[in-house]
């Protein structure tokens, strides 16, 4: 299944390009819109959490963005993957191409947005150089990023295949994403979560990822290996489920669209 993907990477490439370009066609402000959402969120959440709740988190906007940006990469890709079958129904019905390209294209397209949104983080770090910690631990970043991609891709495969067969996947996904939105330490640090709850919540791989980015960039510390380990276990498990589910429904895509 994955060998096909490499053989047909030009198709994958063209689908990613199409998705990415289509988003900015005929928009006066073009790529700026990629930054608009996170910008508005940072402003609103900073007002709520710093001026009303007074969480007292140092460099809250950066702290928030280091959680929000990876999390948005996750939700956006997974949502796009769930809709990828329906959005490309014409293509799926009429052209024989490896279906696995669809979730991969969704994730890759949003990975580009993720990198664009990181410019915002970069901007804030330039404004508050004191928040940034340069250390050898920066070398852990690729590992955290790889783990994040593994998790996102696995979930994307599951929902892409399931949503073709059962359209309720999209609705179920919305609820699950809402739960995860608040159960991922975006607005708070995972260290303040009570132990009992933390044991339960740590199974969400995004916890390890978000906390990892923060530890590395804001504290210059290595990421928490316990959280990353748990995240790796969950992600690998999801990858197996995703491969199984996708294999099962792959050949039925055209039947159910």
């Amino acid at each position, binding site marked *: 299944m994955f060998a096909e993907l490499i053989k047909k990477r030009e198709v994958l490439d*063209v689908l990613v390009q199409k998705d990415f370009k289509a988003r900015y066609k*005929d928009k006066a402000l073009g790529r700026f819109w990629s930054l608009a959402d996170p910008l508005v969120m940072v402003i609103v959440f900073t007002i709520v959490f710093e001026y009303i709740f007074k969480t007292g988190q140092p460099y809250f906007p950066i702290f928030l963005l280091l959680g929000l940006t990876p999390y948005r990469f996750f939700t956006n890709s997974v949502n796009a993957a769930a809709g990828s079958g329906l959005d490309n129904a014409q293509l*799926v019905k*009429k052209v*024989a191409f490896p279906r696995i390209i669809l979730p991969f294209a969704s994730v890759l397209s949003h990975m580009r947005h993720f990198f664009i949104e990181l410019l915002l983080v970069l901007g804030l770090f330039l404004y508050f150089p004191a928040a940034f910690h340069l250390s050898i631990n920066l070398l852990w970043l690729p590992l955290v990023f790889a783990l994040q991609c593994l998790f996102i891709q696995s979930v994307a495969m599951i929902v892409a295949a399931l949503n073709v067969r059962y359209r309720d996947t999209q609705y179920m996904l919305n609820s699950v994403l809402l739960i995860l939105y608040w159960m991922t330490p975006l607005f708070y640090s995972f260290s303040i979560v009570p132990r009992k709850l933390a044991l339960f919540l740590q199974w969400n791989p995004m916890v390890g990822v978000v906390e990892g980015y923060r530890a590395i960039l804001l504290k210059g510390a290595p990421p928490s290996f316990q959280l990353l380990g748990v995240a790796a276990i969950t992600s690998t498990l999801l990858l197996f489920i995703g491969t199984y589910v996708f294999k099962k429904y792959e050949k039925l895509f055209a039947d*159910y669209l």
Partner: protein
Amino acid sequence: MTDANSIADATRPTESIDSKSKMDCPAVIRANGVGKRYEMHRHRSMLLHDAAKMAFSKYEKNYFWALRNIDFEIRKGESVALIGPNGAGKSTLLSLIAKTVFPTEGSLTVEGRVSALLELGAGFHPHFTGRENILINGIVMGLTKAEIEARMDEIIAFSELEKFIDEPIQNYSSGMLARLGFSVAASVDPEILIVDEALSVGDAAFQEKSFQRILDFKRQGCTILFVTHALGNVSRFCDRALLLSHGQILEAGPAQDICDNYEARVREGRLDAPRLPYETQVLPLWKRVAAILTILSMMGVVIGAGIYFVLSSMKETAGMPEPNAIQRIKRLNENNNNKNNDSDALERAP
């Protein structure tokens, strides 16, 4: 089974003079007892609904066979027409050969690059220009980027859309879209070409041009599968024809004969192949129980945990008085005083 044998005999391309020369050619499409079954819509809805049905009633799935027991061989360089009434399974058969849909039973082998003229404009995006869409469409249909760029001028010339090629295609007329789609599809050097009725768009001149292009392919030794209701075209292109009805091959043989037979059958109302029965399947008990347990346990964990945390948080705050306005102001004042003191202290420090 005598019926099946006679069909198999007729399928061998001995009848037409044209196809005799192709007898030695290897078969590029080989169908052995191919069947395609679709799930009836009634039962393919909701997950929870399914679970409830499984739990509380005798759960069954209904299937419909769109094609069954299809046996045929098509040799390299042959051109074969698929004819038959609506719902006979012609399009399903084409989709199977194009490999967008997969057979439920039997085996179907297809050798060589398939280009289907039923996918005119697949993956076209309205906001992109004609040129950009040629690239996207061509890559999706199996060309490489370099190949398309080499053929770009040729494709544009064939479509006769030079003037508008850099306009977004949302401004194209449907005829222009069809031209663009055909031009790309025709530029893919196919070994097997599938032509659906979709071809009949475009004006008379363009249709003629398209037919000529298809005849060119035929001369180059391309295998052609042709679906149409315009029987006049069949004899123009095809050596052989398969007549389908109700998901089965009714007759096979030289194109002209089959067309005549088909017309005669339509006139006399003799189109009835034995209708394929619907099929009902009852799920085994353990599958039902497993499905329900999975769904219930998943929901149970999430909802249970939610309830636990909500209740325990209420227990913790149960005895505490609700902070009233005066208390709040007092607290604020205290905070402010502390802050003032702190800042005073800081000022005094140096």
